[in-house]
Each structure stands twice: as structure tokens, then as C-alpha cells.
């Protein structure tokens, strides 16, 4: 048999089998490339995850006012107290509704109680004439039998941080309101503040007018709650309890038995306790109705998102895109800073293990090659024999 015959015979292999040999195996990359890709993938995942968390954190920071609670700083106390003083009527208001002193009650007994509640009743009917502007608002509402509690919350991004804060203080003073609480601090992206202002009900709109001139109003939530029903219920309870109170006092005057006096006294105590509770509720309602609460969350930015002026798709897209581009620019800038700052950590936790793996790989590979060479040499020697 000739070698050409074998060659010819190979030419008779099935077409399908021969066709299979025409598919190329994809060329593999050299192993350092795989290692590099692995490390790069780990790094990208790491950076991506960190970036995601970072961005989410940033977004939640800009949309939630709660985070400002962490910033311990506050507007100077002087500012706060001066504002409060400017709205000095508020102090009168609190004093006026001060509950009668406990010692008076214990000394003078039932007769005092009657007197004090009568006094209260008188004051309640005038419903805080000493309230100044707030009192007027409350009276207006009371006159048509409607009790409205208005609460406004806003989020503002501003490049004129100081001007905006000053504006809030000025407007509060003008309106005869006061700053109930304020927190401010220096965040990662700039200063921020959370201010809670109490302003007479009828001055709220004037207070909020053109506030957007000092920054971008990111969100506004204006909520009005009608508490007329609860208010009148509470008043009815108070009236009822007072009637009971008077009856018990009358009975006590005629009581001769010690046991009866004790029982009546216990009942009197219960009624007075309930009255106290309802009166507190009424005072609270009066406060909330007279003075609306405005919460303003202020963030200082180097960049101010254009406000969505109308509800059109174009306007919303423009505003959203502008916001996203700014966030992206900030993100990449911050990522770069983060990367450079953390470079030593990468070198320690990624670079060194990679070098160790490389050394181990090279040693193992060299050993395998050696043992292969030995085997081949032994085989060749055997064949020669």
C-alpha cells in the first residue's frame, strides 16, 4: 500500500465531517489579558456600586429634609430669640392660657375652681384678643365657624443662601410671626438649613410671595386641614364638664357626711382633669389655627436647577436634563476625587493580591513545564532503547 492511497482514502471522509473542521475556534487571549480583564471588571463593579450608592445618597440628601437633622449647627440663638421677641404677642398668648396655679387650687378648694373656670370661659369666648395679628386671624375663622390649620413645607435650592435666610427672618418679623426652630450646617455640597416659621394665618401668602426669587423652589406642599368639627366637639365637652363641675360643687355645699364629701371630691378631681385635657386641646387648636406653620428646607448650591415653569413636556425635559447633567458632572468629579483618595487602598487590596497570584501562577507553570519535559525525555529514552 502506498502513502498516496492513504491520502486518497482520507479524501473520502464524509462531507459533513469535513465541513465541521472548517469552523475556527475563537482565538483565546493570553492569560495576563484575562487577569487584567478580571481585575478591571472587579474594579468597574466596585466603582459602579460605590458610584450608585454615592448618587443615591446624594439624591436622597437633596430630596429629604430629615437629613438636615444630623447637622448640629443652628442659626444663632440671638437671631431666633430676636425673632421671637418681635412676635412678642406669642408670649402673651401662652401666659394668658396658663392654667391656674396648683397651690391656689389646693388652698382654696372648690370655690377657687369655679372662679378660675369662669375666668377661662370669658377668655375663651374672646378667643385670644391678646394674640395680636394671630388673634385676628383666629377670630375671623371663628366668626364663620371654620377652623383651618394651614401647613406649608418647601424645599429651596439657592445660590444666595445668606440673602434667603435674611429674607425669611425679615418676612417673619414683618408678618408678626416667629421662628419656631432652625437647624443649619455645612454639608458636603455646601451649607444647608431647615427653618420652621410660624406666621399668622392671613399673612402666609404674603410671606411666601416671590420667595422663589432667592432660589429654585424644588417642591412645595401646601396643606390646609379643617378642624372645625373637632374644635366644636371639644368645646361641647368642655361645656358639659363645666355643668357637671357646677353641680358637684352645689352638692358639696350641702353635703354633711364625710364619706359623701370624699366621693364628691374624687369626682371633682376627675372632671377637672378632663377639663384640663380638653382645654389644652383647644389651646393647641387655637395656636395652630392662628399661626400657620411654614417649614423651609434650604440647600446652598453652586448650581441652581431651572424651575419647571409650566407643565409642558419640553419644560420638564429641559429641567430634568439640566439636573441630570449637573448630577453627572458632580458624580464624575466626586468619583475622581474618591478614586484618587482611595488609591492606596486599591493598591493594597487589589494590586498586591494580583501580583501574588501572578507569581504563584508563574511558579506552577514552570513546574508543570519541567515535569512535562522530564516525561518526554524519559519517553524518548525508552523509545530509543
Amino acid at each position, binding site marked *: *500500500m*502506498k*502513502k*498516496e*492511497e*492513504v*491520502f*486518497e*482514502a*482520507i*479524501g*473520502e*471522509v*464524509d*462531507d*459533513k*465531517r*469535513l*465541513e*465541521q*473542521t472548517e469552523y*475556527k*475556534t*475563537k*482565538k*483565546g487571549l493570553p492569560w495576563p489579558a484575562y487577569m487584567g480583564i478580571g481585575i478591571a471588571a472587579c474594579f468597574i463593579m466596585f466603582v459602579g456600586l460605590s458610584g450608585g450608592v454615592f448618587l443615591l445618597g446624594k439624591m436622597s440628601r437633596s430630596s429629604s429634609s430629615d437629613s438636615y437633622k444630623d447637622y448640629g449647627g443652628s442659626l444663632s440663638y440671638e437671631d431666633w430669640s430676636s425673632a421671637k421677641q418681635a412676635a412678642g404677642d406669642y408670649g402673651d398668648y401662652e401666659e394668658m392660657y396658663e392654667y391656674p396655679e396648683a397651690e391656689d387650687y389646693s388652698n382654696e378648694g372648690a370655690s377657687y375652681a369655679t372662679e378660675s373656670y369662669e375666668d377661662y370661659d370669658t377668655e375663651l369666648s374672646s378667643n385670644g384678643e391678646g394674640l395680636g395679628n394671630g388673634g385676628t386671624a383666629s377670630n375671623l375663622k371663628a366668626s364663620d365657624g371654620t377652623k383651618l390649620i394651614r401647613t406649608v413645607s418647601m424645599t429651596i435650592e439657592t445660590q444666595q443662601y445668606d440673602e434667603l435666610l435674611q429674607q425669611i427672618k425679615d418676612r417673619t418679623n414683618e408678618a408678626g410671626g416667629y421662628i419656631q426652630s432652625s437647624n443649619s450646617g455645612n454639608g458636603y455640597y455646601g451649607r444647608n438649613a431647615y427653618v420652621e416659621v410660624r406666621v399668622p394665618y392671613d399673612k402666609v401668602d404674603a410671606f411666601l410671595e416671590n420667595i422663589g426669587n432667592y432660589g429654585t423652589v424644588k417642591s412645595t406642599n401646601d396643606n390646609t386641614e379643617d378642624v372645625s368639627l373637632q374644635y366644636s366637639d371639644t368645646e361641647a365637652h368642655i361645656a358639659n364638664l363645666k355643668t357637671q363641675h357646677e353641680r358637684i360643687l352645689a352638692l358639696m355645699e350641702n353635703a354633711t357626711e364625710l364619706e359623701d364629701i370624699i366621693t364628691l371630691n374624687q369626682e371633682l378631681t376627675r372632671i377637672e382633669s378632663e377639663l384640663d385635657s380638653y382645654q389644652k386641646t383647644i389651646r393647641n387648636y387655637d395656636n395652630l389655627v392662628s399661626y400657620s406653620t411654614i417649614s423651609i428646607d434650604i440647600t446652598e448650591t453652586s448650581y441652581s436647577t431651572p424651575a419647571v415653569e409650566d407643565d409642558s413636556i419640553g419644560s420638564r425635559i429641559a429641567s430634568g436634563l439640566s439636573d441630570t447633567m449637573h448630577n453627572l458632572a458632580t458624580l464624575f468629579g466626586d468619583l475622581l476625587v474618591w478614586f484618587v483618595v482611595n488609591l492606596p487602598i486599591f493598591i493594597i487590596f487589589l494590586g498586591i493580591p494580583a501580583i501574588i497570584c501572578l507569581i504563584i501562577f508563574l511558579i506552577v507553570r514552570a513546574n508543570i513545564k519541567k515535569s512535562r519535559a522530564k516525561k518526554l525525555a524519559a519517553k524518548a529514552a525508552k523509545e530509543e532503547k
Partner: protein
Amino acid sequence: MEDRQILALYQERDERAIAETDSKYGSYCYMVAKKILDIHEDAEECVNDTWMRAWETIPPQVPEVFRIFLAKITRNLALDTYRANTAKKRGNGEFTAVLDELEEVIAGGEQPEEALESKELSETIKSFVDTLPKRDGDIFLRRYFYMDSTREIAERYAMKEANVLTILSRTRKILKDRLIKEGYVL
């Protein structure tokens, strides 16, 4: 044009079939012929003969894979030309190397007195290739059917040339054992 359409032209005895085949598989068949024949003109002629052989055999034959069918014809024709030229000169270096390697398969033993039918040998080779692991079979066929150099095979299957040589050597040994077992080589 797709193979199916070219084959339809052969069936209709339309001479455009040859032009289409030449246009689509001319360089492919030339490459097969050139691996066996050293001279460009010989390889060209071999390719032209391939078209004539295809024209004569289709119909009645219906090729399973048209490209492989043509490659087989070219290969056989080139081998014939090689044989005719052998007295005068040697063939292409790659082909000579392939034949030398195949000589290993039949070397070392005497030939049987009665030569077995070449058809039986073809069946043995087919079955031998089928028993090989897929990759080893592919490498064997790339080397001894297409006459690819070991370097080309190494590139095609993304492996080292030394590995290709080892696999070919091992495969030839297995083939030799098989041929001895079946009585082609004593």
C-alpha cells in the same frame, strides 16, 4: 449566489453554473490544489478540471456539501497531476511533508500480497476519524485532507504548534495500529 441555486443551474444544464462556481469557489479550490502542486499553472488547470468534473457528475450526483464536494474533486485531480509530475519533479513542500508523515502509518511492515480494495480502506479511515475525539479528528483532517501547515492548524484552534504536532503524532500511531489490526499493514 447560494449553493442551492448554483446546483439548480447544474441540474438544468445551464452553463452559467460553471461561471458561478468559479466565482464563488475559485480561490478556495485553487488553495486546495496549490497545497499539492507547486506550480501555479498546474493548480489553475486543476481547478478548471474540477469545474469540468463537477459538470459531468452533477447530475446524477447531488453533493451534500457543495464546497467539500469540489474540494474533494480538486484534491484528487491535484493528486493525479502530482503523480504525473513526480517523475519530473517533486510537488509542493507541504504536500511532500504530508505524504512523508503518512508514510509513517504504513512503514515498518510488509504489504499484504493481495492489496485490499481502496474502498475498504476509505471506510476504515472514515470509521477511524469517527472514533477520534472531535478536536483530534479535526486536526487530523485539517492536516491530511486540507494539508494545512501545523502553524495554520495551531492558529485555527488557538493552541500551540507543539501541541498540534503531539496530537498528529499520537493520531498517526493510532491509525497505524488500526491499519495493522485490519490487515492493511503486516
